[in-house]
């Protein structure tokens, strides 16, 4: 059995409500937030083959997630649960300007 503290992989799905999809501003906010966590965090557009490092703005932009697409988030590490919750919150609240 995996140790819950750091071995478990946390996953969550969330719909991208941002009007123009994952463009520069949302991508910058997402990666900034992801970098606050120790956990290794990956995202992908639901169904995509490849998982993408949530801390890389270049890769998040290249993902070309459109408005209305579903984003899958997975994380592993000591603060994985908090990381996933924070990212889901950022996306469902449509990347508010004060995402502190």
């Amino acid at each position, binding site marked *: 059995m995996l140790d819950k503290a750091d071995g478990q992989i946390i996953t969550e799905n969330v719909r991208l409500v941002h*009007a*123009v*999809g994952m*463009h520069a*501003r949302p991508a910058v906010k997402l990666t900034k937030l992801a970098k606050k966590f120790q956990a290794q965090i990956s995202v992908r557009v639901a169904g995509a083959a490849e998982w993408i490092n949530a*801390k890389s703005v270049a*890769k998040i932009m290249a993902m070309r997630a459109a408005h*209305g697409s579903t984003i899958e988030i997975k994380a592993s590490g000591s603060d994985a649960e908090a990381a996933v919750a924070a990212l889901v919150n950022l996306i469902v609240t449509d990347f508010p300007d004060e995402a502190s």
Partner: protein
Amino acid sequence: MQGGAAGLAYRGRTASIGFAHGPLVRVDAGTNGERIAGSLVEEALDLRKAIDAASGQIAELAAIAGGEAAQILEFQVALLEDEDFIEAIFTAISEGDAADVAWRSALDEQIADYNSAEDEYLKARCSDLADLRDRIISILRGGGGEAPKIPSGAVVCADDLPPSRFLEIDWSAGGGLALLRGSPTSHVAMLARARGIPMVVQLGAIPEIGATALLDGEGATLELDPSAEQLRLFEKRREIHRKSRASARAILRRPTASWRGERIKLLINIQRVEDLDHADAQYADGIGLMRTEFLLAERGGLPDEETQYRAYDAVLRWADRRPVTIRTFDAGGDKPVPGFTIDGEANPFLGVRGLRLCLARPEIFSVQLRALARAAVQGNLRVMFPMVTAPDEFESGRKLFAEIVQRLQAEGIAAMLPELGIMVEVPAAALAIATFKASFFSIGSNDLAQYVLACDRSNGALAPLMDPLHPALLELIARTAEHGRRAGTSVSLCGDMAGDPRCLPALLNCGLRELSVNASALAQIKQTIDRLSSGGGLG
């Protein structure tokens, strides 16, 4: 001295209005100076130092610029802090690439990727990335990334100019920007407009001569080494511009118009995207009517979906969060379109026109609705159908639109059904207004007047009968406004009446609180409402 450029004038496109008269300064992408690569370790170290230096420069720029500009730069900073992205470049260096070569190829790859995107927004990011690429390369080549000294008040001429270079120039003493390429929708154009710096783009080729320049952002002209006569005319245009701006600004800059304590929304009508270049357009509460017939007038036949999408998208971006009402094709009547409208109608004004025609030609209408459905996700879009007589027509239009949205979404394309409304221009629609389940109404007073007064508005012999203040017309307007008030549905008026100060008291008394006028009439209408509100007459 070569005299070849003297008195020459070049025409481009307006990106930001205003006038500049000053020394001509050419700024070219700093590709001069070859760099000699060092050892693998030295190369890696050089790039690391260049990245740190660039981060510092950009952060400093962002702090000075603030707001929108800071957000543009934030993406560049994020990219420099992207370990995955940077690591790949260091890997290339460890495999023998020189620092500048590795950096350039990584950035060029990103730029090519963005450039291949369908999305205009992603394409626009290319210039931000090129900006970042050139900044680092300039530092690596020992340039320190310092901008060349530009005298204040200069007319800066470049092929294109990245946003960060624009921000490095001291514009405090005015000046202007003349770009040989560039685009009015670029970030740098946005910055120029925000700063009130005149800017003309797409000037094409200009000879490498000329010491002083006149830049007219309104006429979109650049004149090199002007003659005394050119200078005199330029100063005259500048003076006219200054005076009209001063009076219009004074009125327009005041808070929103109100009458008897109620807010009056003032929107603008546009015929084409370029109408947004009007200096006063920015003060509108939104776009009350965007006509789309200009798309049908372009050469090369009926417009494809992409052409239409780009036009709608550009307007929505301009409007930001303000509402934009786009009217679907209003062809027919006095607006025949080859390949679309029906020839040989005995009475085209009472014929198959407006929504009637669109419903009869679903293959053409569907293309427009697809483009609108895609644009709807970009901003606050409302779509209205012209020339509607019966609720069934409106529902048929809505049904077709909803199907198109569903189809797009099934294809995985971002799309949504915008708020739908109708133009109230057929008397029957005005009289039976409560039978329409529309989200908003817009009174097209020109057609409504000609139908209710039975006068062809283009027939000069009937001019005395074409009275916009005829009680029958005002009765229909008042009924529509009253219905809107009771039903909580917005009602605006977008015909010529709205821009006619003499009609304003009647329109306000009819209960209208939203008016849509040409940008050039905005200041006068706002001023008139102010006067009426403070108990004055029309003045």
